């Protein structure tokens, strides 16, 4: 490798082969919210081309889960900067760890499907700074967007997948992910409950959050709620192995925002419904 050229790095499911791995297994077992996958994947249940497609989907999911640990790591730094209680700090760090465990769950599925669980460890996503508001409001934006909105959409899609998938091994994997994601989504509303009195004493912050949500809803809809141009309904075989229905992304996104996120946020005086109706990428 030429000097000065960055080394290509890859993440796999391999552990360190030291006592650190023993501690990792202990932590993994302690934090797991439901029993791990006990079943074995049976490839005879699915056409080979569908297994191949599922393998690629889980590889993309492994990367998404791994990358998203950074969002909670940044969130942990933010809540520490405003000296939030230790339980808040600890659970945010726990959620970062959950995302790493999710990457490991994805890796296990990929290997069961006959693939190699190996993803490029490229530059990780970092949260942008909210320079137009205070540190407290920045934390609220981060938690509302990350937990109350995006993780809630993930909860709905996973819960729907658990009910639709026919393969018992894949269903178990979805179930493991869902058990954590519901905590991640509800953490946002627990945090808002923790800040309720603070918010009630500062109605200007609640108004500012409503204004931020106008942009945040529009931006998140692009990322999580748009149907790809090449999206088409799933085949029965794709549904059976748990592949997503890409034509359903807009529907599940809007259903979640309207039926869970908005009523949940409005409990805290944040005018989320009005923000949704006026969502826009540009002000005005």
């Amino acid at each position, binding site marked *: 490798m030429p000097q000065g050229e960055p080394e290509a790095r890859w993440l796999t499911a391999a552990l360190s082969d030291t006592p650190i791995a023993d501690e990792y297994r202990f932590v993994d077992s302690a934090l797991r919210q439901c029993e791990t996958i006990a079943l074995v994947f049976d490839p005879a249940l699915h056409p080979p081309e569908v297994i191949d497609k599922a393998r690629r989907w889980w590889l993309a999911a492994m990367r998404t889960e791994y990358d*998203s640990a950074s969002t909670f790591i940044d969130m942990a730094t933010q809540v520490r900067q405003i000296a939030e209680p230790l339980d808040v700090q600890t659970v945010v760090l726990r959620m970062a760890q959950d995302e790493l465990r999710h990457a490991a769950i994805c890796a296990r599925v990929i290997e069961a499907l006959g693939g190699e669980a190996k993803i490029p460890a490229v530059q990780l996503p970092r949260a942008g700074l909210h320079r137009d508001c205070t540190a407290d409001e920045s934390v609220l934006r981060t938690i509302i967007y990350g937990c109350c909105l995006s993780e809630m959409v993930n909860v709905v899609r996973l819960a729907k997948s658990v009910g639709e998938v026919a393969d018992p091994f894949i269903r178990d994997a979805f179930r493991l992910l869902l*058990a954590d994601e519901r905590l991640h989504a509800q953490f946002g509303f627990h945090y808002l*409950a923790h800040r309720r009195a603070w918010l009630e004493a500062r109605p200007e912050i609640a108004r500012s959050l409503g204004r931020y949500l106008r942009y945040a809803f529009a931006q998140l809809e692009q990322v999580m*709620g748009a149907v790809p141009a090449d999206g088409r309904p799933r085949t029965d075989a794709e549904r059976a192995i748990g592949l997503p229905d890409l034509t359903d*992304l807009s529907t599940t996104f809007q259903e979640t925002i309207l039926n869970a996120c908005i009523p949940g946020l409005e409990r805290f005086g944040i005018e989320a419904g009005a923000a949704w109706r006026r969502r826009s990428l*540009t002000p005005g």
Partner: protein
Amino acid sequence: MPAGDETTNSPSEVPYVLPKYLRFARSLALVSGAAIGIAAGAAVLSSSGCSMGCNGICGAYGVGLPIDARYDTPTDSGADGSDGSSHDGGRQNPPDGSAGGGPRPAPPLPAAWLA
């Protein structure tokens, strides 16, 4: 439908019975701190969805689709709104919208919003 249902305040929103996966999500958002605590311990999810705390008070009614015709049709991958400021309502293919979970980092407001 309950008279106090807070989700049906737009003429374009059609009340309907929520499917189970949405009732579950709604319960997480509305029953915060009551039925489903962070320290709830072992979560047992049934094969058809979950059984970890949906206690029926989350409401059987919600908001049905279609709601917004802009977003219920396939997108054109040529749309570029990645910086969030180039146009209003433009869409792009989700880079990971269909591939697994994880929180998304909260985007700062673009410069146009700060004026």
